[in-house]
């Protein structure tokens, strides 16, 4: 029997009279990768922002392993990670300090140094760990955004175009990492404009247009 990790019920988002996201029902199971595809302005990012709690939906309820994202915020958010397409960072903290801060906030300090080194080396950021992210290239910033999620535990991860700024090797690395997460029972929802990536990784694809899901 499959286990629902992330669930959205009648989720919608409007801006004034413009409906960016029509009422949506979504259930993501443990250990599956779901690709969110569709043209620009289809509502993919709005859906991810709502699911992550960064943007309050106009209607609907979101639960993570049964915990309501707004009523049981602590429990829900400690199980959920989101990586935006253009991550932003504190100007005064280096990449390594960002990882440490996130690990501390999520109480994932045990074995932090080893995990941080391993992740930084895997994503080729070890040499640049003491630099401020402002001096990083766009691809490096995206990698660091991913690492801020990977440094702490989660049951579901939402990624907004996670390979858009990456070179082919790094994109493959991210793909492999997501496959490993799936094997460990993690739920992955990623938006992408790359049909190849969706085909290679996803167990199923959800196509969006004008705020609605389309039949694929």
């Amino acid at each position, binding site marked *: 029997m499959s286990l629902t990790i992330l669930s959205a019920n009648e989720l919608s988002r409007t801006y004034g009279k413009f409906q960016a996201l029509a009422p949506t029902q979504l259930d993501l199971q443990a250990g599956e990768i779901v690709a969110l595809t569709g043209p620009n302005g289809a509502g993919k990012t709005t859906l991810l*922002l709502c699911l*992550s*709690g*960064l*943007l*309050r939906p106009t209607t609907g309820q979101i639960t993570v392993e049964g915990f309501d994202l*707004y009523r049981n*915020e*602590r*429990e829900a*958010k*400690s199980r*959920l*990670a*989101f990586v*935006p397409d253009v*991550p*932003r*960072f*504190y*100007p*005064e*903290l*280096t990449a*390594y*300090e960002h990882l*440490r*801060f*996130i690990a*501390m*906030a*999520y*109480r994932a*300090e045990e074995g932090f140094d080893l995990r941080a080194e391993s992740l930084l080396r895997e994503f080729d950021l070890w040499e640049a760990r*003491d*630099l*401020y992210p*402002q*001096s990083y290239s766009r691809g490096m910033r995206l990698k660091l955004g991913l690492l*801020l999620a990977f440094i702490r535990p989660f049951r579901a991860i939402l990624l907004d175009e996670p390979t858009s700024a990456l070179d082919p090797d790094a994109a493959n690395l991210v793909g492999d990492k997501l496959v490993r997460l799936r094997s460990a029972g993690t739920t992955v929802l990623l938006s992408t404009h790359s049909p190849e990536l969706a085909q290679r990784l996803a167990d199923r694809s959800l196509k969006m247009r004008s705020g609605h899901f389309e039949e694929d």
Partner: protein
Amino acid sequence: MRAAWFVRIRQMETRFKFYLAILGYDRRDRSLTHKIYLGYAAVFFVIWGFAVMSLLASSGAVLLKNISPTDPSLAAVRLGWLALVGWGIYILFQATRRSPLVFSEEDAYLICQTPIDRRAVALAWFPADWLETALAFWAIAVVLGFSLAELRIGPKIGLVDLPQYVTTGLRALAAFLPVQLGLHALLWATGCIRLWRERGPAWLKPAALVVVGLAVISLLWVLSQSGFAAPLPPVLNIIYAPLLYPLQAGFGQMRILAGLGAGWLLGASGLVSLWLASDQLNLSRAAQETHDLEAVQAAAKSGQSDLAQELTDRRQLGIGHAPSRLPGAGGLGSLPWKDLVQSLRLIRLSDIFAWLFLAICALGIALLPSWEGRTLALAFWVIAAGQRGVSRFRRDLAQWSILRQLPFPPDTLMIADLAPAWLLVMLISGLSLLPWLWQAGDYGVAALILLPGISASVIFLGAHDILRQANVATLLVGRAPEVSARGAGLGLLLTALPLALIFWMEKNGLFLDSSLPLAVGIGLGLAYIAWRVAANALQGIE
């Protein structure tokens, strides 16, 4: 020659159009009413400037009279000299560190890579930079001139005295103008010499530092003398003659023509030096040194203060840092750890002044003799405490994708993020209020007891005001709103409530002992309400 001037004039035109747009003047609108409006705006600013300078001149007259009761013009000369030398030291020091010519990224590609006449570039770039600093000196000159006129004419200045009043100001301005022009051009010439070819001459930096050192010593010497306007020793009189003669002429101590001649001689020498020094100017080096600065200046001039601050911070931070060794706690304790690392990593001068201002306001509450003065100081304290208290929270909000993902409910997140600033506001204000304890025991004690509740209300209300204006789209690109006038007004109201209660009860025969607990309760209750309202606003950001 023409290319450099063509580009520079276009740039100045664009900047001028921007200022006109702020005034609400649209150059495309050729209607008569629009032209009349421009004329009206020009007249308004002339009159406004005259009024402000006349107002300042009243205080200036008192200052000059106090410095030199027998001959206030001596004090005017000394103050003018002090302003010019102090500014000159700063600019000379700056000229040994970075190019005086500031180029944008576009200039770096389109001008600095071309075999354009270097002298033309230096002379074309000079006027705008000079004007920006000159305006301040012109204002100083006119205010000092008006101050002297006030002292000469007497306290009752009539319309009939206006020509003499204006002429005295213009005479001072006529003296300052060439002197400051020449000095500025000389300092630019120094900066241009540093940019000769690849490295610039080795003697320049030590020579400039010697000049700076001597100027600082002479300034300190003058400031340490008991009579501020006392005559300078002969050696300083000779060294500073090119500055002193024109100023003495401007303030009526010698014939105007002789002084102006000396002033214009300095002005012309400066411009010729700049012309000579800029021949071998390395424009690529100048562009490399200044394109970051140009971005900061452009952002600041167009009102994007957050962007200007962000760019300045980046310059100050550099590209990296060894990991912080500060111990930190897990969970909510991670937020104060982050705040502390950030605060130690980047110490902004503007932040130091803002905290100092808060301390001065609290000191004002404690020390000012009248209740009216204390009320005014309290109003400024509320605004400063609100802005200081939410300063870090604003910056955290600008990292929305990190902050909002943290596994903390909004109410606890707000407390953890605002608590360090609240403690600092309390510490600084509390220490500044201490003199009140000795001066008027009961009121001092009351102020210290009320401080936690009132400062918490003000800070939570400031946070609510920011959150009320914020939206996710702008937070995601790193822009958080500032505390608005409405937020400041509400902060004042919240502060006034418990204080008004104390005064009202005291007026009605109840002593402080009985009214204070109620006021503290109201203060803490208001803080609680402000906290809940702010937490709801954080969760409900659209």
